[in-house]
């Protein structure tokens, strides 16, 4: 009985526990296969690649906490990427870059606001709404940049790619800031509202929580984070491509769930999903370094991910058997 409470306690009160175990495990395997993994240059080159997904995942996590889902985030990433690639250009100045970074963030928030408007105020179902807007955004990105090309000055891109202040990858600082901001936000009243709305919207409404506003804001945050992800991936690739964000959407959702947030809303946080995003990427590395037969790679990777998703359930099943 006591034992059971401890496990459930860990799983429900500390949703970060399991994703942390997964991450440690996968990092250990990766380290075994790639001993120089923690060398600064290797670490940095990995983290800079993971960061866009991490940023996207944070926004997705907040929407999921608030009881929604956002499958238009990839589209928003593409829009931001094409804006930067066409407006700043390969020859642009760093002032111009700053200017369009700000504009991109506004555009991301605006795109999120469009989602939020339809979902919170017109009360449309989130999956199908963001599916529809994902066409709007992806189409808009293609409209801005019909053919891949353009980009940002390589000097600016290399700031992102090579900065390692105090011998730590830039991404670590970004993650630290994200965690700090979340630690703050989740303990504000607004943070409680997010959980309340995701938990049971009717009850929250009867308790005088501004439900629609909170739902709306979650999508704005998600749009904003998608814009940050768009900026990051533009800095990483240095170029523009209207389809750049599309494949990222489903990964962000998987990362959030591996990170321990419930699909039904009202539970979880942001730290778990960040770990989840890193774990997903590390798994890819493991596949690379383990030199399995190419034809098996996709199968093995997918199986590992399914196993990771199912692991808590297997443990629970096993525990219940014993009890």
């Amino acid at each position, binding site marked *: 009985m006591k034992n059971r409470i401890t496990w459930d306690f860990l799983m429900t009160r500390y949703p970060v526990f399991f994703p942390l175990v997964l991450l440690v495990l996968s990092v250990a395997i990766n380290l075994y296969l790639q001993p120089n993994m923690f060398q600064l240059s290797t670490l940095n080159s990995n983290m800079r690649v993971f960061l866009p997904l991490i940023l996207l995942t944070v926004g997705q996590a907040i929407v999921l906490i608030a009881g929604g889902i956002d499958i238009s985030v990839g589209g928003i990433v593409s829009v931001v990427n094409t804006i930067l690639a066409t407006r700043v250009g390969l020859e642009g100045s760093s002032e111009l870059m700053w200017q369009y970074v700000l504009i991109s963030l506004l555009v991301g928030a605006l795109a999120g606001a469009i989602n939020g408007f339809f979902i919170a105020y017109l009360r449309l179902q989130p999956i199908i709404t963001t599916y529809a807007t994902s066409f709007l955004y992806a189409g808009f990105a293609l409209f801005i940049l019909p053919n891949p090309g353009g980009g940002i000055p390589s000097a600016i891109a290399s700031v992102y790619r090579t900065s390692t202040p105090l011998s730590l990858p830039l991404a670590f600082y970004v993650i630290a800031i994200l965690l700090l901001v979340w630690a703050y936000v989740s303990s504000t009243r607004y943070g409680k509202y997010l*959980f309340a709305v995701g938990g049971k919207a009717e009850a929250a409404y009867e308790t*005088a929580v501004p439900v629609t506003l909170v739902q709306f804001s979650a999508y704005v945050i998600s749009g904003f984070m998608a814009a940050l992800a768009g900026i990051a991936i533009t800095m990483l690739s240095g170029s523009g491509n209207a389809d750049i964000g599309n494949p990222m959407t489903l990964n962000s959702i998987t990362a959030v769930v591996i990170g321990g947030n419930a699909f039904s809303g009202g539970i979880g946080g942001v730290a778990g999903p960040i770990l989840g995003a890193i774990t997903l990427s590390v798994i890819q590395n493991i596949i690379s370094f383990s030199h399995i037969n190419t034809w098996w790679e996709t199968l093995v990777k997918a199986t590992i991910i399914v196993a990771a998703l199912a692991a808590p359930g297997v443990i629970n099943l096993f525990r219940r058997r014993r009890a």
Partner: protein
Amino acid sequence: MPESLSARNIVKRYGGVVALSDGNLDVHTGEVVALIGANGSGKSTMSKVINGVVVLDGGQLLLDNNPVHWSSPQAAKNLGIATVFQELSLIPQMTVAENIWLTREPMTAIGTVNRKVLHEKTEELLSLFRGTYKVDLHPDDPIVSLPSDEKQIIEILKAISFDPWLIILDEATASLDSRQVQRLFELVEDWKEAGKAIIFVSHRMEEIFRIADRYSVLRNGKTVGAGDMKDVSEKELVKLMIEKESVFEYIRKDSKNGENEEKPVCLEVKELQTVTLKGINFSVREGELVGIGGLRGQGQRELLHSLFGDVPYSGTVKLFGNGYKFKHPREAMQIGLALVPGDRGREGLLSIRSILDNLQLPSWPRYGFPLRIKKAKRDAEQVGESLNLKMAGLEEPVSSLSGGNAQKVVLGKWLVRKPKLFLLDDPTKGVDVGTKAEIYSLLTQLCDEGKTILFYSSDDEELIGLCDRVLVLHDGIIRTELSGPSLTKENLISASLGVSNGFHPESRTGGTL
């Protein structure tokens, strides 16, 4: 602080359903107004009009005789109106403390929730009901893990946490046991003294006469009477509510006690143990109506659910002469068991499905392939009629029903199947007096037909009035069995408190129980 609130000629429609056609209510500080009426008469709707949860279709709200208009629940709340919702307004995933203080959390200088103060203030509130919880409640307990009575208490604490001047208690006592009700009433007296106004909704006449100063009666969405409690009798109130002479006759079957002796035993339980139950032994004969008493959370729910195959247990259960160990309620149903669960929203209903689908859910396999829908409808209609179900039609969603009518659906779905042994977990919770009487006569009739009923109720009167004998649970065991002359309210209460029959140790020494 306002002195009074009045609702005048309130009209409220839900789609085509008129919930209120002419609702009127006055409430002043320092008094308790009982809002009474049959199921579906519009009491909850009236509450939601007053606290701004629904939009008015007509009529007016006056605060100190000035018209007011709520644009959201927020507006009403800001002016000191608090509500205990019949269906509760708690977020299951959040903790007790977070739920109580949602939207009014104590803050620190940097805008975060001050957890320390939050804790202290929650502990303070929780202490108001201390002693009535099964295990002590903690501010950090998540709501999901609580039993329904404790949820109800949290909902009450949540309502009073911001020191409102008007408190609406919409069937706040329906899930509480007598001790908890007692505690609540003591608080209500305090509030009254402190100059608060209270609107009290309940189907228990005894409670109304105990606590209310004035009354207001709704019938079919129209206010048909109001006045001072001291000027009316129970009979008169009932007549106002349901346009019938008193239906208040519990059908005691003392005479039958002997008869049952010869009937075969249909349920025999030996050393039944679960997480809360610590070895239950009893047997029930065919045609008996056996009550289960005790305070809430002593294992009554678990007993009924384990007999129904919903909760795993150890020990032996013999039904109709054979031993069984069900792994799923379906197996229990197949040999003629039926369970009416205590939490109708969570365990008894499919909210967005039609009334027909709800009534027939356990019985579909009996209608062949393809399902004979016409016959299913006829059967459902019959049950509806026999229970006096107030509905717009079988195809309407069950969520459109009032609380009491929804409860009838939960009971009614088993009547379609004609089971042999009924397990009832507080089946009249939230049911109005008229319907209650009908349910009582239905239950006695079922027993006469040879059906057996195991019946838990949080209403002691009900147990005493209806049952052949009552098993009183305390702390997971049957502490006392009461029957015949020993089945009195006094004995029931003392047994509930864990005091053996005949002895009055500890607190009750000075009493005349």
